[in-house]
């Protein structure tokens, strides 16, 4: 029975494009005990790490999905005839960080944090669905408020926003960083 459950879960994860959450699995697998389901997922994850497999199940954005292994990246690129995947610009990454650490937040706040107008970058992030509108702030002008999205988590391989280092941890990282050599360019 347990084996059959593992099979079913594997096929369900396979068929989902979005990370498949435990809640969703439970809501579908009503014939099974919750404990059984959790147990089966654990076993399934183990199988994939021990076996020599080209694909594995990873956990992100609070759910599970299949992906290829990083070491096969160059082969996949050859197959799909893709030179390289596009990366986010440093402006986009900076804006995302500002939102991630200060959410929910407004465009004016983001711009203030960065010291530069962020209208354009925010628009790009909205269109990429890395950021979402979550409502309006109750303050003069009622500006729209923004948050990072589920896709943000998936994109950066995070299970939840809590996986990001806390502001205190960030400060620690900064302290440990050595002072760069004279005149080295900013990253």
């Amino acid at each position, binding site marked *: 029975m347990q084996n059959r459950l593992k099979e079913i879960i594997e096929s369900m994860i396979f068929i989902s494009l979005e990370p498949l959450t435990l809640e969703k699995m439970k809501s579908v697998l009503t014939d099974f005990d919750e404990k059984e389901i959790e147990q089966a997922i654990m076993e399934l994850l183990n199988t994939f790490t021990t076996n020599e497999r080209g694909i594995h199940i990873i956990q992100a954005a609070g759910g599970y999905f299949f992906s290829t292994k990083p070491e096969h990246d160059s082969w996949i690129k050859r197959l799909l005839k893709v030179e390289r995947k596009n990366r986010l610009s*440093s402006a986009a990454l*900076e804006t995302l960080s500002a939102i991630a650490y200060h959410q929910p937040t407004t465009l004016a706040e983001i711009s203030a944090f*960065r010291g530069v107008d962020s209208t354009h970058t925010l628009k790009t992030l909205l269109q990429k669905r890395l950021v979402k509108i979550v409502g309006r702030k109750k303050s003069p002008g009622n500006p729209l408020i923004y948050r990072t999205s589920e896709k943000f988590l998936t994109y950066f391989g995070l299970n939840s926003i809590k996986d990001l280092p806390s502001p205190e941890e960030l400060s620690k990282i900064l302290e440990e960083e050595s002072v760069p050599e004279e*005149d080295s360019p900013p990253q």
Partner: protein
Amino acid sequence: MDTSANYQVKLEVFQGPLDLLLFLIRKKKIDIHDIPIATITREYLEYLEQKQRINLDREAEFLLIAALLIYIKSQMLLPREKPLDEEKDPRQVLVNRLLDYQRIKAASGLLKEKEEEELQKWKRTALPSILKEDEMDSIEVSLFDLAESFFALMKRKEKEGIKTIKGKEFSLEDKMKEILALLEIDEFLDFLDYFNQQESFEEALVAFLSLLELIKSRIVVAIQDTHFKPIKVWLRTQHGKGN
């Protein structure tokens, strides 16, 4: 643009003023909590003069921080009886902003590493065609999707020809006449009903303004018996006798 390989000193462009300030602070090995404001202002202004090192689209923003630096410098020069306590230090505002920005930059570096890792893993962006079920094109939507969808629809309408939307022009005068004509026939007008009969938002808006105009010029009166009951509009003369 010199793209030759010999051109070793690649000039990085600073995205914004805080970016440049942080760079100068690190370069001079300055304690961020105790910034020598005169030195940093001088350095900052020097960089601003070498325009190729700043993002010119952001010139105004660079100048804004320059102004802040100069202001702080002037505050520091004011003669004081007692040394400043930390909270009143004019540099505090700047220090807080820099600390915030520094954290954002550190986080941004981490995200970049994460991105690099994740981009080596390939996920499917669509399910194989063999598995296709009906309605597989369905998407999980957000408020942005909703708004964007409406925006696209509006754009499409615009292209199709504005005449369908703005076919009729509604004048206040015509609407006022229409309302009065209706009041001649019926004793009163149900406010909400009347609006629901308007064919477009535009028309309803004009109708509303006309009604306001009639009320203002004391030709009609709008009455609501109790809260949540329909609002009725009467001709003033008629209503006068009943009240």
